[in-house]
């Protein structure tokens, strides 16, 4: 029946998403244990070579092994993603729950505050922080994290409002449940699936943002490799090695696609009512 059909499609996207995400996570894990070449191992004798037996993806203008750069680069991507989404959810979710369960004024002020934070997109925040502290992984994480807070606040508020006005919360209040126990036993479990789906999608956006910031030189600084900066370096050598920008781009695209598909798949599985989006 159509539900089974949809569940299968939901499964498909979820498995593809999980596979891609798994691949990136494995890359990051492996990079701690094994790297074909040192990230700073320069081999001036063969620079800008194409993919070969000992350099699977070839070498860059300084003779460094591209595969190693990509492999270790995955660490930064995941690290920034986890911390940024962590910041956004740890601030955004409680704020959203507060707005969704309190009176009109609290609700209104929180939403206006979110509008103001929204006026400072990640890139802008990163630029401001970089003006003071210079570009770094920390700048990228904080900028992306804070810029994503309004997203989590808004969806949590909407989900909390829906739960707070539900019959089962009315009944719970009738037998004395209120305050924190009400939030923990009734609100949180029922909004968890929406937040998980959002976290997965936010992770994808965070990867894109981190890559852009590194490309602009505001993110992770050398020598730590990151896909964004590899693209920036590749741009200056387009004439000699047109293949250079392909690999980091593919790595970014696959991991972003992975988290987005995981988000869609989770949405189908966790909360059937959200299925059609």
């Amino acid at each position, binding site marked *: *029946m*159509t539900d*089974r*059909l949809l569940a299968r499609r939901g499964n498909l996207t979820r498995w593809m998403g999980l596979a891609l995400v798994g691949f990136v996570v494995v890359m990051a894990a492996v990079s701690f244990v094994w790297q074909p070449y040192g990230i700073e191992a320069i081999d001036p004798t063969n620079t800008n070579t194409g993919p070969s037996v000992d350099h699977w993806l070839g070498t860059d203008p300084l003779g460094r092994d591209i595969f190693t750069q990509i492999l270790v680069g995955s660490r930064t991507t995941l690290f920034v993603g986890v911390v940024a989404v962590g910041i956004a959810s740890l601030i955004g979710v409680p704020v959203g729950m507060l707005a969704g369960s309190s009176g009109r004024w609290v609700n209104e002020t929180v939403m206006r505050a979110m509008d103001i934070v929204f006026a400072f997109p990640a890139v802008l925040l990163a630029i401001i922080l970089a003006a003071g502290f210079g570009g770094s992984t920390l700048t990228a994480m904080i900028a992306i994290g804070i810029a994503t807070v309004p997203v989590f606040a808004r969806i949590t508020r909407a989900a909390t409002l829906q739960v707070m006005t539900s019959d089962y919360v009315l009944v719970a209040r009738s037998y004395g449940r209120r305050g924190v126990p009400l939030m923990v036993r009734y609100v949180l479990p029922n909004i968890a699936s929406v937040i998980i789906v959002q976290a997965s999608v936010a992770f994808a956006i965070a990867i894109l943002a981190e890559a852009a910031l590194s490309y602009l030189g505001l993110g992770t600084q050398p020598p730590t490799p990151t896909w964004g900066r590899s693209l920036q370096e590749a741009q200056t050598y387009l004439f000699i090695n047109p293949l250079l920008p392909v690999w980091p781009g593919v790595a970014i695209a696959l991991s972003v696609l992975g988290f987005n598909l995981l988000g869609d798949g989770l949405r189908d599985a966790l909360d059937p009512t959200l299925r059609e989006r």
Partner: protein
Amino acid sequence: MVVALLEVKDLTVRFGDDEAVRGVSFSLDSGVRTGLIGESGCGKSLTALAILGLAPTTATVTGSVRFEGEELIGRPERELCRLRGNRLTVVFQEPMSALNPLMKVGRQIAEVLEVHDKAGRGEARRRAIDLIEMVRLPDPSRTAHKYPHQLSGGQRQRIVLAMALAGDPALLIADEPTTALDVTVQADILLLLDDLVRDLDTSLLLISHDLSLVASLCEELLVMYGGTIVERGRVSEVFARPLHPYTAGLHSASSLEHSDGTDDLRTIEGSVPPIGQFPGGCVFRNRCEYADEVCLGVPPLRVPPGEPHEVACHHPVSHD
């Protein structure tokens, strides 16, 4: 022999391999009011949608539906559109979402006339105001300029009724038209429906879960359960001598007002199984007290000896 207004033969609606409507057959004569009774999940609304050609795209509809002698199943969409809203119209259950929130109600009524080239824009607007008056709404010209959210549930259902009757239809299908309304508002709407259907000489197919509603408005009755018609006949006959155990159970469960609350109501055991999980043979077998191995075979809809109307049951309830 005059051609029946609507002739449905072996109508089946399937989603994948689950049958929601299984081989429904009945016919309606012109000028007759028929009630289609059944609880949620019995396939009554889906039957109406299939007749109108508005079943969801994921459904496969088979069988035959002949309206005024012409076959509708498989007919090209263009031709069906000439019929829908003109000779064959429908009122759905939920007035709150049936109207386009961004368009004035007068305009939405006038549209019916324009789509069927029965009037130009100006003429259609004037007739829309007359139609608003016909459905007894206050200050028709001003109401025509209102948006749906400015009207109550009852008022919106009258607008939907005006749209359904604009093209002077031969058959009006009303799918639970008053379920979402208050009881006094429902009474006014039913009064209006009764008057208009008589004045415009329109046949009515009233779909409902409320036996007393059908008793108040219809002459013929079809009882549906598990996607099939289990009993069929004149309302008075079926109420007097319900032959199918399900109809009998439904009849007694609905007659709250006769019992004084001391003894328990006669109930039907268990609950309606989800689609696709009805038992083979007689669909009511798993909830019926008379069920035996004979019921493993699908009971045909026929008139048992000595009885006035049809029933699909191997062991019809005896009343003597």
